[in-house]
């Protein structure tokens, strides 16, 4: 089961879940991903130790996609 989560004031919120075979669930996840991007969130796929990838589209095969806020110099 793949998950789309958003880091927020609650720790994190699960926005969508899908499997590779479930087109409807994936379509809903894509909509959620797009909505979050419009709100200013950035999609990131953790690729294991030391690696992560910024994504502009929801990858169907990713196990976990995390929406994060932008960072800025303090």
């Amino acid at each position, binding site marked *: 089961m793949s998950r789309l989560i958003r880091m*927020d004031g609650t720790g994190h919120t699960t926005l969508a879940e899908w499997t590779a075979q479930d087109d409807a669930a994936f379509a809903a996840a894509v909509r959620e991903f797009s909505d979050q991007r419009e709100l200013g969130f950035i999609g990131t796929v*953790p690729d294991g130790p030391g690696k992560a990838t910024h994504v502009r589209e929801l990858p169907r095969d990713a196990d976990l996609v995390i929406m994060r806020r932008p960072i800025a110099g303090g």
Partner: protein
Amino acid sequence: MEQALPELASVPWRQRTDARWLRRWGRIWQGWTLLYTVPFVIAGAGMLWLEPLAAPVAIAAFAHAWIIPELYAFRGASVVRPKGRRNPTAEPVAQGLLGDLLGHEERDLHRRTGLVLEHARLGVWLVGEAGALLVTAGGRRVHCFCVRATDAELPPSDRVAHLLLALREDEEGFATVANHAFAGAPWRVRRRMPERMRPAVGAARAAAR
């Protein structure tokens, strides 16, 4: 799939922070430290040599030579001090997510010190809630970066996770977006850090050697 950090669009005027940039800034900071320290030492020694009764003024000059570098080191260490709301209700959830992103040793170090150790190409990073330290290869110099997630409501571990993910996406981009606050010897920064965090500097130096 994209590799460049999207936040770079907000700082288009900045030169990309790579190993060469870090070496240059390390040397500039070293020269700067000598420039504002040595004159005070010479002045103090000169006063003692010319007139021993001027010892109180000489001591004041020596104090300046000691205090000014300490203030800069304090500024560097401050980037990793805990800041903002603690959000105790959400923090355990955020800790769980951050823990999933870390290996066993890194998770243990974060639990003890509040800092996440991350190996990367520029060196070994220690990522905090609102800043990061970079111990460069050899472990003899640390660069301090002030950088934060733009959501003040996030629990502390989520703030760390934000910085960690951005760092993993594009290390040089992360260092470019961050504000460089200080560069110098790790021991100078370490002793100005909260006691709980100090072992993380030792771990980063050992990993960087």
